[in-house]
């Protein structure tokens, strides 16, 4: 074992430089705590910036432009078939999007005097962290924040390879395969499936559950299901992958029939917390059977000096949840009365149409025995949707029956990811449908649907 002879003392060490980690570190620094980030890749932004949210949204923007150009034909504007050049596309994504944001984060870290150490952090008890890597050292900390995130889960029995990709590999767009198999009908499979379909791949999607986006109310999924039904070559629901392997320059997959051949496969069956190899067994922190670190309402582990935030602590594995938790933990460490007591964590699927929701879904509310009223506003009645040539959207509100208090909001349609912010604000602040109905919404906008749906709840 290599041991650094350098021992540093800091108030707070953050393990992992993703959105949760850097948010925590920056807030700690703002509160006057000397803070250090240890990141296995020596970078800020984590999977979100480098191989997740940001690059996928860049590619989805490209898909969106292509789709809009196609739709323009109905409006009497003809662009002709798209010519996609992958090199400039990759360069734009890597330099103008990811690179620029990464540079920005590094600048913020410098300004806040938060040092980023390149290396793997391994706990040695409740007070110190050994950093293995190019600059081995031991860090003695007052408090530690574990923000190591998650990684793509593998399909049991399947060996990943050059042609059997996870989301990280797929985002590199090595080429545009003629035939792409997407395993998993969750948000990652749908988003990347749409990217490749727009670039020209024939996409086959296989999902084990009986519907796409399992867990989301079916009426919110329907507009997207209809869209991918047209864009994808085939969608197989309730179907399990029996075998998947590389054969020469192809991928052979078996799912309830004779083996089928593809040029590439994308395995998008979820993400796994990265809690192994951190030396947590030398601390009092507890890891559950699925690898999540157990935390209380302040994101504190069973070890009072060690906190954990983000994907490594459980679902929903979303960057903005981690960022909020990071800020909460910084305040807790600084002695402020903070708690991660958020009511909603909004979720957005950046497909076309987008799907977004926050708070309780209709199904979850009913399953919990809550007496609720539900309102739906179909965008077919929206002036703004008509001018966009998009009447396929839906705004849905779930309210407590007795009070009219909004407890869940769901959206489907273009721009749903932006529109959900108002839903999050309303539910987090315990607003009533009446409050939303009486708030003037600009006309003509898609946001009016929120007001319209709220009005219909008032009767």
């Amino acid at each position, binding site marked *: 074992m290599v041991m650094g002879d350098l021992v540093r003392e800091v*108030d707070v060490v953050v393990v992992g430089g993703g959105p949760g980690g850097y948010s925590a570190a920056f807030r700690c620094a703002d509160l006057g705590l000397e803070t250090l980030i240890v990141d296995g890749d020596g970078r800020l932004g984590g999977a979100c910036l480098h191989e997740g949210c940001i690059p996928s949204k860049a590619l989805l923007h490209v898909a969106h432009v292509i789709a809009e150009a196609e739709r323009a034909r109905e409006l009497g504007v003809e662009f002709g078939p798209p010519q996609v050049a992958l090199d400039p596309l990759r360069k734009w994504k890597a330099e103008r999007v990811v690179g620029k944001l990464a540079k920005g984060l590094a600048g913020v870290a410098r300004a806040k005097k938060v040092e980023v150490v390149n290396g793997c952090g391994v706990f040695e008890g409740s007070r110190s962290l050994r950093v293995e890597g190019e600059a081995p050292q031991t860090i003695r900390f*007052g408090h530690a924040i574990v923000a190591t995130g998650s990684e793509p889960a593998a399909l049991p029995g399947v060996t990943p390879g050059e042609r059997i990709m996870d989301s990280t590999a797929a985002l590199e767009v090595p080429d545009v395969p003629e035939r792409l198999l997407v395993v998993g009908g969750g948000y990652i499979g749908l988003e990347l499936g749409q990217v490749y379909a727009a670039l020209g791949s024939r996409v086959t999607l296989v999902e084990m559950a009986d519907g796409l986006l399992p867990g989301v109310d079916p009426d919110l999924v329907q507009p997207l299901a209809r869209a991918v039904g047209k864009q994808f070559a085939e969608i197989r629901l309730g179907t399990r992958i029996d075998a998947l392997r590389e054969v020469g320059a192809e991928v052979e997959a078996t799912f309830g029939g004779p083996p089928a051949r593809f040029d590439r496969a994308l395995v998008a069956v979820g993400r796994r917390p990265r809690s192994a190899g951190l030396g947590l067994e030398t601390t009092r922190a507890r890891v559950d059977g699925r690898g999540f670190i157990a935390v209380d*309402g*302040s994101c504190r582990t069973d070890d*009072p000096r060690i906190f954990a935030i983000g994907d490594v602590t459980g679902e929903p594995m979303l960057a903005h949840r981690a960022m909020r938790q990071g800020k909460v933990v910084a305040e807790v460490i600084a002695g402020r009365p903070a708690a991660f007591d958020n009511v909603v964590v909004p979720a957005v699927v950046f497909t076309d149409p987008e799907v977004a929701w926050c708070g309780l879904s209709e199904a979850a509310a009913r399953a919990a025995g809550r007496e609720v009223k539900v309102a739906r506003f179909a965008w077919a009645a929206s002036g703004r949707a008509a001018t966009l040539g998009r009447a396929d959207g839906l705004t849905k509100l779930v309210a*407590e029956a007795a009070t009219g208090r909004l407890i869940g909001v769901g959206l489907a349609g273009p721009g749903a990811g932006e529109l959900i912010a108002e839903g999050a604000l309303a539910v987090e602040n*315990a607003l009533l449908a009446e*409050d939303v109905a009486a708030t003037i919404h600009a006309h003509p906008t898609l946001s009016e649907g929120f007001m319209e749906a709220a009005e219909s709840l008032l009767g």
Partner: protein
Amino acid sequence: MPRDFTLPDLGEGLTEAEIVKVLVRAGDVIAEDAPLLEVETDKAQVEIPSPMAGRVERVHVQPGQTVKVGAVLVSFADAAASPAAPARAAAAPKPAPAATAAPAAAGARRADGGPAPAAPSTRRLARELKVDLATVAGSGPGGRITDDDVRAAAGGGGSAATSRAAATPAASGAPAERTAPTGPARPLAPVGLQPPPLPRFEQWGPVERVPLSHLRRTIAERMALSAALIPHVTHFDRADITDLEAVVRDGFEPARAKGIYLTLTSFVLKAVTTALVKHPVFNASLDPGAGELVLKRHYHLGVAVATDRGLIVPVLRDVDGKPVLDLARELAALAQRVREGKAALDDLRGGTFTVTNIGALGGTGAIPIINYPEVAILALARARLEPVVRAGAIVPRLMLPLTLTFDHRVADGADGARFAAEIVALLESPGRLLLGL
């Protein structure tokens, strides 16, 4: 069910008040924060705003009546006969506390499994005041919990205990927290004291029995509580304020031209606050029930003011952010309000540390008693010219005797000595003092 509004805790240990005026009648529909009543305590006459909006069903008090904290003043009819009522889960069972975690931290859950309806800022307030939102009835639309609901619940006690320790103060870089808590906080053992019966003094000669005035009784109760509960320790020091006095003298006339009466006390307040920032344990309260030290990240200094009715300690807010001139102006205005009996409730509560200056009356020093539940109090005696040895020669210097009394449960003699030395050093170096360094 009607909602009752009771006389809130008026601060400063006041337990009762006299109703001066009732400003509402049964049947009135009033807005939140509208004035309900005027009451007078021995310290001030204050207006009590309505904590909720609604229709007044009944007024339980009349002018001239003396009522205790907690007595029902006004009942409100239930919010319009909307189906909102069931949402008000005042009597709802408390959520089962998580096995190890602090319940409030996890977010207050109501009986129906939904979160308590309150804005994030209100939930933060509840954490600060250690109020379990699951037990608070909301007075806002549809039972939404407002800041005032939380404050009322905090004043009423009872439910608060369940939600303690949303955040067990974690060790930070502050020198106050040398050892990080390694487990959940536990209450300190209670101190029980019953005064023994007095002898019959009449057997030794004639006596006269005089009832205590309201304020006298309040002071007596507070001082006895403080002296009985807090192991007091007192540290003596002296500051050479010859240079500082020159600064005060220089600034006196220019300040007076601006209508400001510049005094040594405002400089002392500045010095104390600067020292408190570096020694946070002296700006704290011990919570024996929780086994926690409550470090206050705000600096509201009480200044003892003698009035013809007795000693009153009004509070100057946020002293840390204010220049000396502002302190001097505010202090003069505050003292005047107190002497005229016009102090507002907020003038009299929320102090974090107390300064008492007995210099005007002479003496060479005094050992003050802590203003419970603060941790420390600083007494100033009269500054006098004294022969002092400087560089081997005896020179006349203006020396200010200081006495710091503090809670030995919270701090040790060495801590007190360091804190006092910091104050002395600041007073001896007016430049540093004015720069707040």
